[in-house]
């Protein structure tokens, strides 16, 4: 794994602001990924609620589904923008990466483009088709949204899996040849654990955020049948997915240990290749060891190798300039696992009360914890991606192309970074404002005939 193992499309450039370029990419990604979580899971929830409404002939579910679908569309519209930002940045920030490898992973984005397109088309039909189409046709129009939400993210995750575990091409004298895009993307063993980990995360994040909103409402005294229903459905999904995510996470970690041992070493702050390695919780990595950490003897070997004295590869297996920044990766991992454990705990409490006592928990502390769980689940999601992407550094394509060889030679990265950050701040404030407005518009459980002619008028009346 020599640093110059690939001959890039363009000669290397001298870019002083590589770190800022990476941060700009990370910012764009962190803004986009919670929207992806909603894109994966929310359409299915909305469709489920609408189906309940038609099946049970209960207006309450239809009202809920319709209000949720407005949120879904708003978030999709924002997701189109943040997704466009990401596809621009592939070229604006990393022209040498797309210039060299664009053809290897590009097919995935072509499929993603079509998925996105179909999703946009049917989300338009679904949004404007409420009560203008038969229930069956309207629900059918949501099915492509559910499917494309899955396929679109599947192929994008396949690109990330490929960047972490590049396959499907040969390097001959530094030239990328013999490219097999399908086996590179879909035949990649790394795809499946990333995919499943992310999908479950999608349900957890979306579930806890939606439930968190209604938990907040309960603390403010809004607690009718409508709110209880709106809390029960997403919370049940998230509560069931959270414990499963811990099991899946263990599987993912073992795969990382096998294919990207240096990343695992950074996660654990393990400098020397060790037999019977200890697990370090919290702590700070300085001078090639962990300080102030809680040590659990042999646990790391047990987890990664299922044996008491299993060998775990350390950071010293590669030269210093091929190691990721340890503390960023280590702490991102601690946050992800810590939050994940908290969410699983909350989930167990909910399921136990629900199953044993056949009701929702009563304690005000449970609902306070639920409100807290909403932002924490997003933090865990982003932290998880920090582990994957920062843990891959200094490579953009693991072991093949370094990030500093991929960056643009253009000036003004800092200006772009600042402008993008400022814009996102403005848009975030706007989004909070509009979601609050949507939440505040009065419920119309007993709609009188033809009171609203067009989507949006009921909001203007508010």
């Amino acid at each position, binding site marked *: 794994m020599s640093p110059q193992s690939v001959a890039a499309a363009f000669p290397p450039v001298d870019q002083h602001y590589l770190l800022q370029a990476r941060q700009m990419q990370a910012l764009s990604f962190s803004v986009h990924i919670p929207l992806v979580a909603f894109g994966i899971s929310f359409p299915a929830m909305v469709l489920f609620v609408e189906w309940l409404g038609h099946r049970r002939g209960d207006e309450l579910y239809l009202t809920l589904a319709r209000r949720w679908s407005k949120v879904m569309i708003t978030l999709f519209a924002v997701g189109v923008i943040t997704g466009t930002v990401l596809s621009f940045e592939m070229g604006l920030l990393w022209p040498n990466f797309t210039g060299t490898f664009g053809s290897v992973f590009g097919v995935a984005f072509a499929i993603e483009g*079509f998925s996105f397109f179909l999703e946009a088309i049917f989300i*338009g039909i679904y949004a404007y088709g409420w009560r*203008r189409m038969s229930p069956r046709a309207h629900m059918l129009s949501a099915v492509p949204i559910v499917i494309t939400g899955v396929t679109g993210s599947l192929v994008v995750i396949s690109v990330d899996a490929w960047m972490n575990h590049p396959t499907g091409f040969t390097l001959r004298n530094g030239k990328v040849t013999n490219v097999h*895009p399908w086996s590179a993307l879909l035949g990649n063993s790394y795809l499946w654990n990333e995919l499943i980990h992310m999908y479950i995360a999608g349900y957890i994040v979306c579930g806890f955020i939606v439930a968190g909103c209604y938990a907040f409402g309960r603390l403010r005294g809004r607690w009718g049948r409508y709110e209880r229903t709106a809390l029960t459905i997403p919370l049940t999904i998230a509560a*069931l997915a959270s414990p499963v995510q811990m099991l899946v996470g263990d599987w993912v970690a073992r795969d990382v240990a096998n294919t990207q041992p240096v990343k695992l070493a950074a996660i654990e702050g393990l400098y020397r290749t060790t037999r019977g390695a200890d697990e370090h919780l919290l702590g700070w990595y300085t001078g090639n060891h962990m300080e102030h950490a809680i040590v659990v003897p042999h646990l790391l070997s047990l987890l990664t190798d299922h044996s008491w004295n299993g060998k775990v590869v350390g950071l010293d297996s590669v030269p210093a300039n091929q190691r990721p920044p340890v503390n960023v990766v280590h702490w991102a991992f601690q946050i992800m696992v810590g939050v994940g454990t908290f969410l699983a705990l909350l989930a167990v409490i909910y399921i136990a009360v629900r199953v044993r006592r056949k009701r929702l928990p009563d304690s005000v502390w449970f609902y306070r914890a639920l409100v807290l769980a909403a932002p924490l689940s997003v933090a865990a999601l982003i932290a998880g991606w920090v582990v994957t992407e920062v843990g891959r550094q200094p490579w953009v394509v693991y072991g093949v192309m370094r990030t500093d060889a991929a960056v643009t030679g253009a000036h003004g990265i800092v200006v772009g970074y600042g*402008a993008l950050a400022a814009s996102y701040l403005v848009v975030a404030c706007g989004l909070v404002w509009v979601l609050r407005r949507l939440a505040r518009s009065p419920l119309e459980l007993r709609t009188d005939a033809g009171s609203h002619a067009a989507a949006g008028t009921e909001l203007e009346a508010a």
Partner: protein
Amino acid sequence: MLQALPLIFILAGLALYAVLGGADFGAGFWQLATARRTEGRRVREFAHHAMGPVWEANHVWLIFVLVIFWTCYPKAFGSIMSTLAVPLFIALLGIIFRGAAYALREGAATHEESGRIDAIFAVSSILVPFALGTAVGGIAGGRVPVGNAAGHEWSSWLNGTSIVIGALAVATSAHLAAVYLAADAAHDRETELERSFRLRGLGSGVIAGALAIAGVFVLNGDDHSLFHSLLSGRALPAVIVSAVVGLAALVLVFERRYELARYAASLAVAAIIAGWALARWPTILPNLTVDQAAAGHDILVSVVVVVVAGAVILLPSLVLLFRLTLTGRFRARELTVVETTTVTRPALRAGLLARVAVACLIAGAGLLNLADAQWAHVIGVTCLISFVGIAFCAIVVPALDEQASSR
């Protein structure tokens, strides 16, 4: 031929984006242009509602163009994106604010609020086509050399050709939108609105035509080789088609035949894009031919397969959306009939489901977390996902029943 096929997809995507996305940008333009007039508010409301359902769909064309470009001509893509980083980034900021304003408008309660949001929307609707037009001008004028940011970061897009193409993009968008909105107003029998949009359509069409003619002179002084190849040989028919059809579009607007006018104007835009490609053929950038820039054979075949397969699914869906939108179905009154046929449901065996779910959980954990074989992991993951699904039914159905009965 295979090497050029994706380029045709890209140019077609670009033309569709210019026509469909352009109409959206133009609607934003008219929101600004009518902001201070008494009728302005009505115009703005109308423009906002008319573009509603198709809004997201039109803007995915841009993503399509980018993606096919970097997959099939990675080296050219890297060169263009790095040299033209500034105008493309400006366009990106415009896209962010435009989309945000569109999404935020749902929350506007008063006319002042929606007016302010519309102003942001309108300014960015002008900025985006202008910036993208200057970038196209940079590529067309041969100012993007092969390399990582190898061209000049300012003069590559701040030059006569770029600015004329940027302005032309704005004028064309305004024209397309005005014709589109005039047709909609005619369909809704809003004579007042129709008249004002018809006038706007004529005005913006004349301006677009004047800009196109001015562009020819600017090009002559700026990039004589492109000027020469546009007006000679294989590109000439495309230029003539564009001019004739553009003129016909104006006549059709005058005659109130908006549907045909829209197609004519779209054809004029497509023809000028085709003319540009023909004039530059066989190069994609200076000293880089299409054949040299193209990715390997397998990749091009994969992309063509994906695009064709995608189109088979996409086009009927798109036709459905446009038909529902253009026939005014989405502006119709809502039906008030609520189905109240309560289906008698068989009693759910929640207890049995719960036991199956727990069995799935245990089996899944064992196979995924203790076993090492790949097949075990596959079954394990399936078990765990089944656990979530089955347990969801076991918990949610009785919970909802209980909530419904205690209303």
